[in-house]
């Protein structure tokens, strides 16, 4: 057993924290208010190697472990959960290629992301299929020497700026999950029709849209795995991506805790700092316990990936626990700040709005419990 980060990991975390404090925290509120895309910060983060952490060294990446990736994700989300979502969506859309791509596909679809700044987008959810992902209706038809994609996707992160999409569809809806397939679609391909940017409660800087594919043609070699293997690829992707998403909740929760501790030592009521009141101390104690418990789950879920062990159950623990805790902690932070917490003058109301989404995307907290129960009961 070893709970220590390595020296390099500590340095990477320090550097990511410096970036969060200097580059993200000062602009987070502006992007939240304007609902604009954090292009400048995205580029800076790319230059420093903070994004696309999943790309292996042999394809030009830094060769980070999953543990490195969650540690970086946690720290960037500490700066802004919304901006981190844009960054993280790149990895989510590159992971299926890393997991299922051939050597040629990785050369073609991963490597360019290490050579120049590019944005990727993952298209699974549809207007009528969220949690029931196996029921997606987007069709992928054999057009001879190419695939033809038709259908509509919803809540697609980075859609408006993507240089490359991974699109899930079905070769035959009657096959259910056995018909699902994944293809790589270059941005700008004819027939891609972007919807308007969604006006969201939180993560307002992240670009989220509906997107329609109308007779979009891609070469045969753009399919990941064989036709019908998409479901398996999506499930494997989740084993990698859930710890990452959970790390975003962890970062947001840690930020809410830090802001609360700082405020509790400054704010005076009844003649003393509110940190001296037991009611506040209990809230801080609960927050701290949940942050640490989330961290242990997130890092364990990532560590299992690095050890080559199946992490489905623990990854769902991490995703559900960290995101539910983040919601609770950020809500308590607003409570602790009182009226000031409800005001946009202080950062905690944004944390509370941002926290909510992490309980929803990448498998809701309820879906995580389904996964957990299934894993536990089959033993």
């Amino acid at each position, binding site marked *: 057993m070893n709970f220590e980060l390595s*020296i*390099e990991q500590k*340095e*990477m975390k320090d*550097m*990511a924290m*410096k*970036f969060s404090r200097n580059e993200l925290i000062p602009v987070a509120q502006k992007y939240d208010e304007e609902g604009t895309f954090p292009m400048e910060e995205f580029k800076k983060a790319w*230059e*420093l*190697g*903070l994004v696309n952490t999943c790309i292996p060294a042999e394809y030009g990446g*830094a*060769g*980070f472990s999953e543990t490195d990736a969650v540690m*970086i994700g946690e720290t960037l989300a500490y700066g802004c959960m919304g901006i981190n979502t844009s960054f993280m969506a790149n990895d989510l859309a590159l992971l299926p290629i890393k997991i299922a791509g051939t050597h040629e596909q990785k050369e073609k679809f991963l490597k360019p992301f290490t050579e120049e700044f590019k944005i990727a987008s993952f298209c699974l959810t549809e207007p009528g299929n969220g949690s029931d992902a196996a029921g997606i209706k987007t069709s992928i038809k054999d057009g001879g020497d190419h695939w033809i994609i038709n259908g509509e996707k919803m809540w697609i992160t980075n859609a408006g700026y993507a240089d490359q999409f991974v699109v899930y569809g079905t070769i035959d809806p009657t096959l259910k999950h056995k018909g699902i397939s994944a293809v790589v679609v270059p941005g700008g391909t004819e027939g891609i029709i972007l919807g308007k940017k969604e006006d969201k409660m939180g993560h307002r800087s992240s670009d989220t849209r509906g997107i329609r594919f109308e007779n979009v043609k891609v070469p045969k070699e753009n399919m990941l795995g064989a036709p019908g293997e998409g479901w398996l690829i999506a499930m494997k992707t989740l084993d990698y991506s859930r710890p990452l998403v959970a790390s975003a909740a962890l970062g947001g929760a840690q930020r809410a805790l830090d802001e609360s501790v700082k405020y509790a030592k400054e704010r005076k009521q009844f003649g003393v700092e509110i940190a001296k009141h037991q009611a506040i101390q209990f809230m801080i104690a609960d927050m701290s316990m949940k942050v640490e418990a989330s961290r242990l789950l997130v890092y364990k879920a990532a560590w299992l990936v690095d050890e080559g062990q199946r992490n489905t159950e623990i990854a769902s623990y991490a995703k559900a626990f960290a995101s539910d805790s983040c919601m609770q902690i950020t809500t308590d932070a607003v409570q602790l700040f009182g009226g000031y917490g409800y005001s946009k003058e202080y950062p905690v109301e944004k944390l509370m709005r941002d926290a909510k989404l992490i309980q929803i995307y990448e498998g809701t907290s309820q879906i995580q419990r389904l996964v957990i129960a299934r894993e536990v009961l089959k033993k």
Partner: protein
Amino acid sequence: MNIFVCVKQVPDTETKVQPNGDGTFIETNAIKWIMNPYDEFAVEQALLVKAANAGSTVTVLRVGGVKDTEALRTAMAMGADEAILVEAEDNLDSYSIAKALKGAIEKSGKNPDLILCGKQAIDDDCLQVPQVLAEMISLPSVAVIVGFEQNGESVTVKREIEGGALEVYELNTPCILATNKGINTPRYASLPGIMKAKRKPLQQLSLADVGVEAGDRRVVYSNFQLPPEKPAGKKFDATDEANEASVVAEVVGLLRNEAKVI
């Protein structure tokens, strides 16, 4: 060019400093160390000069404790090529540090073309090492520079003086320059840079290796103590006209008899 950068490792700016048990230094056990912020400007300037002069190397030097080598690794992660660490107590005096740096430069086997330092360390604020080092190795030096331009064998540097005016100096290399905030914007160490840094050479020497003896110490710290806690301020309320006169009289009385300022 052979470029040397002298860096110090200082407690993180958010550290709550406490004197140690015997009062000879601060408690260092739980301290998070960082590179002295003024030294970051020196490292950045060194990297800019390196980029402009093909074939240059940047060597970072540090004298201090070896438990943590954060400052040197950060410099190498930013892009410095190699590092030399002289093991010493963290509370060495400026004279001994300068002598150790001189010895380390000689030990490197390279003739320095440019030596950069931060203008001061934010922990002890001595502002001495660059000047003492320059004197010891007989090189021209300018401290607190905010501008740097290289013209072949010479450099033009700007130094801010009282009132915001600038002094402009032209020096021949080799020389020693101490950087101030404003000269450049230090880069972040990139993540790949951090991973590369662990493979870069870090040479460790003792004080004896660089010719420093116990008798070289010019300053010995005898005691460290926290400043006395400030008493809470007093508030006076004269918003009510009825007691205005008595409050004013009370304040004047306190200023005269207690604070003794009038």
